[in-house]
């Protein structure tokens, strides 16, 4: 019986599933924590069971507890166990738990690699799906590296359900393992055109996310996205794409032009608010990126603003909010069109929704102008009074200050008004922003010299009424203002009308209740005021007033001497002693005013906030180096302090003190001034701003009369309103005056054109009330202008800033799972495969074996594949290390830029030609081309680079017929290749990415003949050399000569040495230490029939003339029985073309260049050219390193730049068989030579 009860209880215990747990927690509201802890104990028991069902149930409950905030990481291993269950139900629970609580720091994660891999390749699509979903949450760099290849295969899975998940997870993989981006990208791009809309959407999602962070790498995808945008009907996809375009347009204004039309169509046609809103947003981005002032875009702006107005007026608060948000973006570039909706925005300030009010405030910030600033601030001040919550009121306060102070007080015409606004703001109760007001007061008073008199008067009133500010302890935030008031009164005390009264106010006993730092300022500035008073009464013998002042100080200062605040105490006692001394002197009738004022002479200039950071580190200063040798560890600590104390000699300092007399002091001051004058980092007063005591007095400035006896709260109208009225009157007056003047002028110059600014009150019309001299902030000399202080170095997306258009290198292939790359990790891995499925092993050992077998098979297959790969790799490897003759730098410099410029020109073509044939797009995208190169290089024989090359003009006649033959051969080969790779048929590559310029021109049906820039250098029966010369982007005096050596003989060629007879102008760059006539060793040997490329760097001085260099190649021919020394002479021909670098140029920049008038013209006519125009352009692009700027029908403008920065512009026109080329360049002889070379190129075909 008893046993039965026990058994029943046990049954129930295991009965507790998630629902029971939740119910239990709800029933134990009072002792939830205790209940949960017992539950956790139970769960621990359950996890100890062998039964996977029990475990899964426990893990499921843990997931719930995790949500409640309980750390369940202790069960991580059990979670892995449940994950590896063969049943979908449990697996799903396991993966869910893992996705909720696993992270990079979870150490069992590395045990899951094999399990996840198994699930990914499971025949059940939901197993795979669950694994992918889970992985997306806890993928680590290790997992990403190990599984990237598996996921990549899943991207081409037959089931769209898996495809879309695999595509989406790639983003996470990229983040954790950036190296996978380039190999995976082509496939990802394919998925953009997947038949399944879900997969397509996922791909768009991933690429948008990538592009958002590094937009420039994805510009080349613009045509593809454009096509998607015009064809897709899925709003989610459309929104993503439109958002992406918003990120791309700032980089490429022409893209914007293309977008405007479809976007406006969408705006007109769509009914989905979300889509409409994003369209408007992107149109705004486009408009921002386009240079403003284009008349045909004002319609688009109007459309946007009009649509946004509809949103803002909508009753839906969400739309209202978004409308305001988008409006603020327009504001930056087209403030005028937003300002007309000021009414609406001010209306939003009254909205009950705080988010909307804040947005409206943001908008106001950008809407102010000189004209409406006072009006807007007045409105805001009203809101300040009305606002109930302190947070919103504080927000208003900061906004008012932001609005007024933006861009160096640009919009303030009347600083008296601003000061009074600030003073009014001090009346705000309980604000936290006292220091903000204070710093504004200081800023204005220091930087606007003309306002000082007024400011000082106001501050004196503030000080006088300090009790109003400090009376309430709650308002202590605002007492910061007194800090500013005291300092301004002290520093500019010469403007004070009654310094004595202010001094008295500053020394009231109540001041002692203020915070310490304010008291300190009070004390210090009391001393300044004292000096002013003395100066005022200077000259009067036995001045009663002066002596009274001293007495006042002596009476009141002891209060501060007793202060607990160190700063206050120190300053007070110092000044007290000083005053006492002065009093003595006064009694002896000694003139002291001069000396006392000298204590506070000099003026402080404002320093820019970043000034300190911008001070460049002087050359040779290493901030990390020790100044003194660091104390060695052996020096024991206890002897050190002794030495310090023993060395101190108090007597010495004392005696020095007494010795100092007045003269000495003066002399020292002089010396110090001198020193400071010579020190560039010392912030000194400029000679002009030296304090002048009798300079523009108070009466100079139009001060509004303020009754000082009246407490600060002026009954009735607040002060700033008076200013507003005054200002309006003043403006009207000015306007009237100006009109008079204008009339006069008009009468005088009737024939002349109307003045542009005669319209009603344009911005410039409003002159400031008084001439304001805003002192700019000081910056250290030769401060660096860079402003990239706010880039986050830890951004994980930085790693994804990868150029996707470069062809893939073999080293970049994703790791395939043959064996682990790191030896260290493999034991752990082995252990896990043994230990994880401990209990499953018992049950399903057979299954396991099968799995293993499968695995083995699969890996075999992969090995086979790999082998193939390897063979290719090896071939490539053979040549790779030997390739670079010169440093790798030169290689890098030469290779990647060509591809990027090529990409740019592809995009150019898309952007300039309206209809885009889809076939061209595929070619346009360079990375698919890159993939093609990959496959073709894998399949095609390696001997390709040594194919005979097309020739350059300098070729001799003798080789001509031969060349033709070679060409034929080549064309045949090309055809063969095409057959092999018919889907990449447009790609005729013979030298990697070098021909990519022509890609852009393949928009017409007719394919281009293959071209090459390699021309014959020399050849004999053993060896053949072809070469190409290219400019170096980084160095304006260097060109790189790539020479391909081909062994034509049956023997081995070795110890090849390359030498050139330098001319004055051109020199071969030899390694350091080598003599001027030493030859360079070619760093490889050539087996029979093999060719290889070497690069040599030449330095050139003048590039305006072509030239030839003589050289020799010596080498040893080694056959089985003998070896002979051979020699081959050659002539290197540096054409002017070879100094040109393909440089993309935008049409607007191009137009500017031509307008500048610095270029000299020349022209050329070619007759009897019968090739299609685009072939002609392609030839010029390819052989002469030009890029097409714009092309209209049979006319094209082209651009190139020399390595020394000469601009070369061509205008190519064709009619019938005549081609005329008008050219301009800033160097006539260079241009002449280039044109000659172009002529030669075409004379040969």
């Amino acid at each position, binding site marked *: 019986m008893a046993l039965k009860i026990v058994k029943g209880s046990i*049954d129930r215990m295991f*009965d507790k599933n998630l629902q029971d747990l939740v119910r239990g927690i709800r029933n134990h509201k009072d002792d939830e924590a205790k209940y949960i802890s017992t539950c956790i104990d139970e769960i621990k028991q359950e996890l100890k069971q062998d*039964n996977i*069902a029990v475990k899964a149930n426990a893990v499921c409950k843990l997931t719930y507890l995790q949500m409640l*905030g309980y*750390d369940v990481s202790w069960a991580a291993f059990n979670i892995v166990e449940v994950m590896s269950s063969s049943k979908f139900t449990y697996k799903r629970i396991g993966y*869910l738990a893992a996705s909720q609580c696993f992270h990079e720091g979870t150490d069992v994660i590395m045990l899951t690699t094999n399990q996840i891999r198994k699930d990914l390749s499971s025949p059940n699509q939901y197993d795979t799906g669950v694994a992918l979903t889970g992985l997306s949450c806890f993928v680590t760099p290790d997992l990403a590296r190990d599984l990237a290849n598996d996921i990549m295969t899943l991207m081409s899975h037959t089931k769209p359900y898996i495809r879309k998940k695999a595509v989406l997870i790639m983003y996470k993989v990229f983040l954790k393992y950036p190296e996978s981006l380039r190999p995976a990208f082509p496939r990802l791009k394919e998925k953009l055109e997947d038949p399944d809309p879900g997969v397509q959407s996922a791909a768009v999602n991933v690429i948008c996310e990538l592009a958002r962070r590094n937009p420039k790498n994805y510009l080349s995808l613009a045509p593809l996205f454009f096509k998607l945008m015009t064809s897709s009907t899925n709003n989610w996809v459309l929104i993503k794409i439109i958002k992406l375009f918003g990120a791309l347009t700032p980089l490429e204004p022409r893209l914007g032009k293309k977008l405007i039309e479809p976007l406006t169509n969408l705006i007109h046609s769509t009914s989905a608010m979300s889509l409409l809103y994003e369209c408007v947003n992107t149109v705004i981005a486009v408009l921002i990126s386009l240079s403003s002032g284009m008349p045909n875009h004002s319609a688009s702006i109007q459309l946007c603003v009009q649509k946004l107005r509809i949103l803002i007026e909508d009753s839906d608060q969400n739309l209202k909010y978004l409308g305001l948000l988008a409006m603020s973006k327009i504001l930056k570039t087209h403030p005028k069109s937003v300002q007309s909706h000021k009414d609406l925005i001010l209306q939003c300030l009254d909205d009950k929704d705080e*988010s909307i009010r804040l947005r409206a405030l943001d908008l106001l910030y950008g809407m102010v102008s000189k004209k409406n600033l006072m009006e807007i601030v007045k409105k805001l001040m009203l809101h300040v009074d009305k606002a109930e919550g302190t947070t919103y009121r504080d927000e208003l306060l900061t906004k008012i200050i932001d609005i007024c102070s933006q861009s160096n007080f640009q919009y303030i015409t009347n600083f008296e008004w601003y000061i009074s606004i600030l003073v009014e703001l001090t009346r705000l109760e309980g604000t936290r922003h006292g220091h903000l007001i204070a710093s504004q007061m200081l800023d204005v008073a220091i930087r606007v010299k003309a306002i000082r008199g007024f400011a000082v008067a106001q501050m004196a009133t503030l000080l006088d009424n300090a009790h109003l500010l400090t009376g309430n302890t709650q308002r202590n935030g605002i007492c910061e203002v007194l800090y500013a008031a005291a300092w301004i009164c002290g520093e500019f005390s010469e403007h004070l009308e009654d310094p004595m009264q202010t001094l008295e106010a500053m020394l009231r006993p109540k001041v002692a209740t203020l915070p310490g730092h304010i008291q300190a300022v009070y004390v210090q500035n009391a001393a300044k005021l004292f000096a002013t008073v003395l100066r005022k009464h200077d000259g009067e013998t036995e001045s009663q007033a002066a002596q009274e002042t001293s007495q006042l100080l002596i009476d009141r200062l002891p209060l501060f001497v007793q202060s607990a605040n160190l700063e206050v105490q120190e300053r007070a006692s110092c000044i007290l002693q000083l005053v006492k001394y002065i009093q003595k002197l006064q009694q002896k009738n000694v003139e002291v005013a001069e000396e006392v004022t000298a204590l506070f002479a000099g003026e402080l200039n404002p320093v820019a906030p970043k000034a300190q950071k911008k001070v460049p580190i002087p050359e040779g200063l290493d901030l990390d180096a020790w100044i003194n040798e660091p104390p060695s560890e052996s020096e024991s600590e206890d002897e050190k302090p002794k030495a310090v104390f023993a060395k101190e000699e108090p007597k010495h300092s004392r005696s020095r003190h007494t010795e100092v007399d007045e003269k000495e002091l003066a002399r020292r001051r002089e010396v110090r001034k001198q020193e400071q004058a010579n020190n560039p980092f010392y912030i000194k007063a400029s000679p002009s701003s030296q304090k002048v005591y009798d300079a523009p007095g108070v009466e100079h400035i139009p001060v509004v009369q303020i009754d000082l006896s009246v407490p600060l709260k002026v009954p009735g109208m607040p002060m700033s309103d008076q200013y507003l009225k005054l200002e309006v009157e003043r403006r009207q007056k000015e306007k009237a005056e100006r009109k008079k003047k204008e009339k006069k002028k008009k009468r005088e110059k009737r024939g002349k054109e109307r003045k542009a600014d005669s319209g009603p009150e344009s911005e410039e019309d409003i002159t400031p009330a008084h001439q304001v001299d805003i002192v700019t902030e000081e910056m250290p000399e030769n401060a660096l202008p860079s402003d990239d202080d706010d880039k986050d170095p830890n951004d994980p997306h930085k790693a994804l800033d990868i150029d996707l258009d470069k062809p893939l290198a073999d080293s970049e292939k994703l790791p395939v799972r043959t064996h682990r790359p790191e030896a260290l990790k493999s034991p752990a891995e082995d252990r896990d495969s043994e230990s994880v499925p401990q209990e499953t092993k018992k049950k399903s050992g057979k299954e396991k074996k099968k799995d293993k077998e499968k695995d083995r098979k699969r890996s075999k297959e992969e090995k086979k594949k790999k082998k193939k790969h390897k063979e290719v790799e090896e071939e490539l490897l053979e040549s790779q290390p030997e390739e670079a003759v010169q440093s790798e730098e030169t290689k890098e410099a030469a290779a990647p830029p060509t591809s990027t410029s090529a990409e740019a020109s592809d995009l150019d073509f898309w952007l300039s030609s309206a209809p885009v044939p889809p076939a061209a797009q595929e070619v346009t995208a360079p990375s698919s081309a890159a993939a093609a190169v990959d496959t073709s290089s894998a399949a095609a024989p390696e001997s390709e680079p040594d194919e005979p090359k097309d020739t350059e003009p300098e070729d001799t006649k003798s080789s001509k017929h031969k060349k033709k033959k070679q060409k034929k051969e080549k064309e045949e080969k090309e055809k063969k290749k095409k057959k092999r790779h018919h889907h990449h048929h447009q790609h005729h590559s013979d030298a990697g990415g070098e021909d990519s310029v022509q890609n852009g021109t393949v928009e017409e049906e007719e394919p281009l003949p293959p071209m090459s820039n390699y021309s014959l250098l020399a050849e004999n029966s053993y060896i053949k050399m072809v070469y190409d010369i290219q400019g170096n982007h980084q160095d304006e005096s260097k060109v790189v000569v790539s020479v391909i050596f081909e062994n034509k003989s049956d023997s081995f060629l070795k110890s090849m040495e390359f030498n050139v007879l330098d001319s004055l102008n051109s020199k071969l760059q030899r390694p350091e230490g080598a003599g001027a006539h030493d030859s360079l060793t070619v760093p490889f040997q050539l087996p029979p029939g093999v060719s290889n490329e070497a690069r040599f760097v030449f330095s050139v001085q003048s590039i305006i003339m072509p030239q030839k260099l003589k050289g020799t190649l010596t080498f040893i021919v080694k056959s089985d029985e003998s070896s002979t020394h051979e020699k081959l002479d050659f002539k290197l021909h540096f054409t002017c073309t070879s100094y040109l670098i393909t440089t993309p140029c935008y049409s607007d920049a191009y137009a500017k260049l031509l307008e500048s008038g610095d270029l000299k013209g020349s022209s050329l006519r070619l007759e009897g050219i019968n090739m299609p125009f685009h072939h002609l352009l392609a030839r010029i692009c390819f052989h002469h390193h030009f890029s097409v700027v714009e092309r209209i029908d049979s006319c094209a403008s082209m651009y190139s730049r020399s390595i020394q920065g000469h601009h070369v512009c061509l205008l190519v026109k064709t009619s019938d068989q005549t081609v005329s080329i008008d050219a301009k360049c800033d160097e006539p002889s260079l241009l002449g030579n280039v044109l000659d070379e172009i002529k030669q190129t075409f004379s040969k075909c």
Partner: protein
Amino acid sequence: MIKAILIFNNHGKPRLIRFYQYFAEDMQQQIIRETFHLVSKRDDNVCNFLEGGSLIGGSDYKLIYRHYATLYFVFCVDSSESELGILDLIQLICFFVSVCVFVETLDKCFENVCELDLIFHMDKVHYILQEVVMGGMVLETNMNEIVAQVELQNRMEKSEGGLSAAPARAVSAVKNMNLPEIPRNINIGDINIKVPSLSPF
């Protein structure tokens, strides 16, 4: 990117949380508290966007939420997501939850997702969510597709016997165990306390 999805009730009790970026448990709770604090003090007739959760995200992140009866659905997203789109998505998810988890409530208005339904089926709601959002990115928005996938998976679970069958199997497993060993591990007193908790509330 979606950084987190939080569902909590009017008292701030979490009902479902899903972070797409790692936060430690205590931090997660703090974020929930902060978000609740921000969201709960807003009227129902103000806009559904909020800037400035200090703990999660930063300036680029927004909270987008909907309030249904006793539940708040909050999404924390960055600027790459469309605000209105996410609002639609929240509605969509509520709909799925009512359709997929509680087939019997199909006729109910989906805006009245019952909190109780959600509490007791947190795992199922998670599975639905996984079909809509994956790793912080929107996976699928096609309603039929999502419902079909969830249905298929549920069917698969049923064919395996489901988790509901687990306790039964657990019992049989216990029965097969060596009985005398068990009481040593179990606090019998505890069991007696728990008995009343089993009554339906």
